[in-house]
């Protein structure tokens, strides 16, 4: 019961981990290169989600300097970090997609298994 309560309380944690595992699993097992790239994004996003969620305080204010009385500011640092993370993620995605395009030009397919097949046929 205690565990369930904990889980219910930390649902965002659970969601992030589930997303993370989905992403990682797809990335490693799917043979479609585009799906791998998408999975990579899912994985990154799950971490961003977790990061942003832990910085948030229910009822907190945006961290902008003004008088908020007895209220709280939410932690601005995770947000800032995640902005950086998103930029990094975008550049990796762009680079990965450009690689997929090039691979498609050479093999006419974006399926890793088919590529292996083509290469083994050539040898």
């Amino acid at each position, binding site marked *: 019961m205690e565990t369930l309560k904990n889980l219910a309380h930390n649902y965002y944690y659970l969601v992030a981990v589930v997303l993370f595992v989905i*992403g*990682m699993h797809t990335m490693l097992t799917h043979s479609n290169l585009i799906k791998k790239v998408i999975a990579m994004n899912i994985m*990154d996003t*799950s971490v961003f989600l977790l990061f942003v969620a832990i910085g948030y305080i229910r009822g907190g204010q945006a961290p902008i300097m003004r008088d908020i009385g007895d209220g709280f500011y939410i932690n601005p640092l995770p947000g800032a970090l995640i902005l950086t993370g998103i930029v990094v993620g975008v550049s*990796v995605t762009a680079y*990965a997609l450009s690689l997929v395009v090039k*691979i498609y030009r050479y*093999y006419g397919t974006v399926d890793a298994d088919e590529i292996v097949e083509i290469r083994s046929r050539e040898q």
Partner: protein
Amino acid sequence: MTLQHHFPALIIVIFLICAFIMPLLFRWRSTLCAPALLLVHLLALAMAVALLVRLYAGGPFYYHLGNWAPPWGIELKIDFLRVYMVLILVGLGLWIFVYALKDLAHELKREVTGWYYALYALLIGSMSGMALTNDMFNLFVFMEICGIASCAIISIKESRECLEASFKYLILSAMGTGCYLMAIAMIYMVTGQLNFQLIREALPAAAGLYPNNLLVATALIIVAFGTKAALFPLHVWLPDAHASAPSPSSAVLSGLVIKIYAFSLFNILFFVFPASFRQAVPINEIVLWLATLGILFGSIFAMVQEDLKKMLAYSSIAQIGYVFMGIGLNQPTALLGGFYHILNHALMKGMLFMVAGVIIQATGRRRVKDLNGIGHVLPLVMIAFTVGGFSMIGIPGTGGLISKWYLAEGALLANRLFFVIVIVLSSLLNAVYYLPIIINAFLNPYEGREPVKPVSRLMVGAITAGMIAVIFFGVYPKPVIVFLKAALAAVIGM
């Protein structure tokens, strides 16, 4: 505030700036690119030496980027070990770059040379950043830069193998960094800190409250750095990536990039996790056993390879195992061996990949069994290969023996006789695949109708310099050993 004060940041920044302007400079005056990058390397080297001088004068110090003190700002830490790494990175980066100057003309289209220089600068700069940073998230950013740059430095040679290997590397490397980011999130959740030192202070309390969170974070960190540094079961990307890349890229990837991840893992294990935490969770044991498996299986896989560069790549998996073994044994002498092996292996593997590059360029051969008699046509280069091979085996007079000596001594001091046997056994395995190549190269006649293409003197010169360095660090290792001993004593109190 003098300029000297900013050296730690400048080492990184000049490479990044250089990477930015390099493609532009290439458009404008392409001949200026190489000297500019050389100059940047030399400047960085000079700054690293200046840091060293300052370290000797006043001990370890910190640098706050933008003058923002830790909980908010990014901090760089400068101690002996980190400067040792920076010196290796920049110094050997310079050495490999000199080789690359001539080699690239044969492997790349001329238009992309400027981009290659940019990636090279990005790679060295980000690695220096990884070596110096004292901040978890900053480390992540540098890791991503380094990851993209090292994939790009492979895929820039737009052959099919390169693209494929590069994509495989990218995916696994993204998985690695993803895991690391998750680990940061979990640690940040319970400690609220990103700075190494501050996390270390907050961890004991947090470990009591949220032990599972930290366990998962630890596992994720091992997976992350293990993937990046090709720790045994996570090495699958390495052989293709290192074998298909242009030779200077292979040299820098095998020689430097995997080492810096191992070094970062060391930093996190020893400077983020308190000693008590390391004793509670068998992190070191896990690393140690994986390293052992890597040492043995890397060599066994290397034996059956037909492609020379692939063989060297598998050999790297075995050799990085030594570095991890030093970390895993958790014993100052073994660590000393591991750190000395970082230098050694960077030198010898860099040199061996250069040799492979010269052989491919001169004769077009890259299969191990086609190398018969190659010693007759490329004598100096094959002598360098011999020295490199001997160093891998650990023949006296080469650096390999010295690192093995310290690793073995450390294993004995830690009462782990088994790992001494592993070291001895792996040397034998190395002999089994390096020696036949050397013997066939010198004793069999060279068969080939097509003439051997001339090789640039600069490339041969770089290889010769490497050979001399391998022998030098085998015959006169004392200064480095004394330095490392003092450094390790200072940082982990041995």
